């Protein structure tokens, strides 16, 4: 069975002259990390990798860095997407930020990505790592000294534990066999429901403790593929000034509430916001809660059907109870 990385390299080579750039992943600063790769020269294609370390959602670059709504010279943007990433891509197409025709999409069914923090809790002394793979329900880490096996559910990203879409739902080429999701529809909001079992005072205490750590780095906002206001974001405008620079809980809550509200019904639960948070706040939960409400009220989930229009961007006079 061919290594998927080699397949990716081979397939992109075939169409490279029609592409302006290929977005993929390459090895990061050490063998436990991967970084996004912008490949513009054909000889760099052999940098492409595929493994459980490929966490980043590359769709984040489509609007903000590459302005993917138009391509003047007819060349396309090649992009690798996992299941969760493909939902973001569909959402961008739904909102017309990206034109399908400008993309050459390579979908890769994904068994999960590793959360480095959680892995370190298990085994902080991992050194000389040579290979990281998923085998069944285990993460297998081969080092020069020995092979480690970790239960997948203890080292995967939170988003993967509730993943219902491991197989890309939009692609020009699928690399790999479709796989079974980790979670069924009934488990989609298990993490939200867990918090809702707390009493209201306990819930407030929980969120105060988490949000208090926020340092307003705005990484969660910048990592979100659907956050496309770029440099005009309301939390940073000076005229008028909505948010104080103060670092009290009130301002931090204000920021997170605004961000979640602006993503209500648009968030595709790719989990990047939570992954990038340097102080490990479970920010995806807030957006998932709003998504749950949208699902119940309007029977809609973002990023599934490219033809559907997000209900919060339109209105239907026949809607009741709003």
């Amino acid at each position, binding site marked *: 069975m061919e290594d998927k990385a080699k397949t990716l390299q081979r397939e992109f080579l075939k169409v490279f002259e029609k592409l302006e750039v290929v977005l993929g992943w390459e090895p990061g600063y050490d063998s436990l990390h991967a*970084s*996004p790769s912008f490949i513009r020269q054909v000889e760099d294609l052999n940098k492409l990798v595929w493994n459980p370390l490929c966490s980043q959602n590359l769709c984040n670059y489509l609007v903000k860095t590459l302005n993917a709504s138009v391509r003047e010279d007819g060349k396309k943007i090649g992009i690798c997407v996992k299941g969760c990433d493909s939902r973001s891509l569909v959402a961008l197409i739904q909102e017309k930020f990206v034109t399908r025709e400008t993309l050459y999409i390579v979908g890769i069914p994904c068994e999960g990505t590793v959360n480095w923090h959680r892995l370190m809790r298990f085994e902080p002394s991992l050194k000389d790592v040579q290979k990281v793979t998923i085998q069944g329900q285990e993460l297998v880490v081969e080092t020069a000294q020995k092979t480690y096996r970790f239960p997948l559910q203890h080292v995967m990203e939170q988003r993967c534990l509730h993943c219902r879409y491991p197989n890309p739902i939009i692609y020009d080429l699928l690399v790999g066999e479709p796989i079974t999701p980790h979670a069924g529809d009934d488990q989609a909001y298990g993490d939200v429901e867990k918090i809702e079992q707390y009493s209201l005072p306990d819930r407030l205490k929980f969120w105060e403790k988490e949000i208090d750590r926020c340092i307003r780095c705005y990484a969660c906002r910048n990592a979100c593929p659907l956050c496309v206001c770029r440099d005009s974001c309301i939390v940073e405008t000076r005229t008028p000034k909505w948010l104080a620079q103060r670092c009290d809980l009130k301002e931090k809550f204000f920021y997170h509430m605004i961000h979640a509200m602006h993503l209500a019904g648009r968030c595709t639960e790719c989990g990047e916001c939570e992954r990038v948070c340097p102080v490990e706040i479970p920010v995806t939960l807030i957006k998932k809660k709003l998504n749950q409400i949208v699902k119940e009220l309007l029977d809609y989930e973002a990023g599934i059907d490219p033809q559907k229009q997000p209900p919060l961007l339109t209105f239907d006079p026949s809607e009741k109870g709003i």
Partner: protein
Amino acid sequence: MYEKIFIAQGELAAMLERLSKEMDVWVPVEMGDEKWGVRFLPYYRDNVVVLDRQSTIGPKNVLFPQVETLLRFRYQKDSQDPSKQRIDLKDRQEVSSALVFGARPCDVRGFFTFDHVFLNGRYKDPYYAQCREKTLFATLLCDTEDSACFCSSVDSGPGDREGSDLWMVPVDDGYVIEALNDKGRKLIPIMGKPATPEQIEKAQRIQEQVTAKRIGEYDLTRSAKDFTGRFEDMDYWRDMVSRCISCGICTFVCPTCYCFNITDESRDLEGERIRSWDSCMFYHYTLEASGHNPRPEKFERYRNRVGHKFSYFPDTYNGMISCCGCGRCIRSCPVFIDIRKIVHHLKEAVDAEN
């Protein structure tokens, strides 16, 4: 010669209790249950102090809080003439003594940059000066380096005692602690009992072993000219920086980054002028009121960051690099941009051209 004491791991909590009666004690604690990251917080009983790994965010906010009040103002009507207004303006607050316990050499080194900028320029920053004066550092010898660390590449190292007031070496199931100056010496009697000659000898050996290690394969201390030469090579910067998402994490977790914003936060007739952490990676950092922005693209902003740390700062301050090699920017970056490679490749590209 200063006395060396030994404190067992199990007695650490009691020692921190004693110290916190004399001053504010800042210790590294876990971010939360089942979380990996570590940050510095004021000590209180029940804190679990984490000394076996580097903190995610260093103790920068002990001397340079994320939000600090510079002035307080209040508009008042002039009692002699109600049509006139008066402004009541206050600065200064009292600052208490503090001890930063369990920092690492890289954290302490970050403050050298601050000292140059905040204390030794044409103007002295009184807020920082006061805090600096009243804060001591009990620094831990570092033997927990990982693949992102590179302190040796920037003229420091895991056994670098410079800038600390007390030095801790992990020995047996505890620490041998030594005062490095008079300020530190005052705390020794509260901290523990004299160390045995065996413990002192062990500590000495560990110190030698660790000091001999080289953490970080490159030498990044002579990159100023290479940077200037590559300043206008936009292809290079685009190549290196395309993956950046222009958040503020690298600057916020960096022990040497000191850029700040000044804003007035008021309600009705009173308020405060505060300074708060800002980041050169934000678009708004240099955005002028006219709408012009000298660094509109993220490549330009990242180029300025590299330039500031490895070129402008050493050019201004006798070769001192404004980077302590802690690796936090690499570890915490959402896309793992590696500043070591970017600076190192400046050299290689110039060599290739030659």
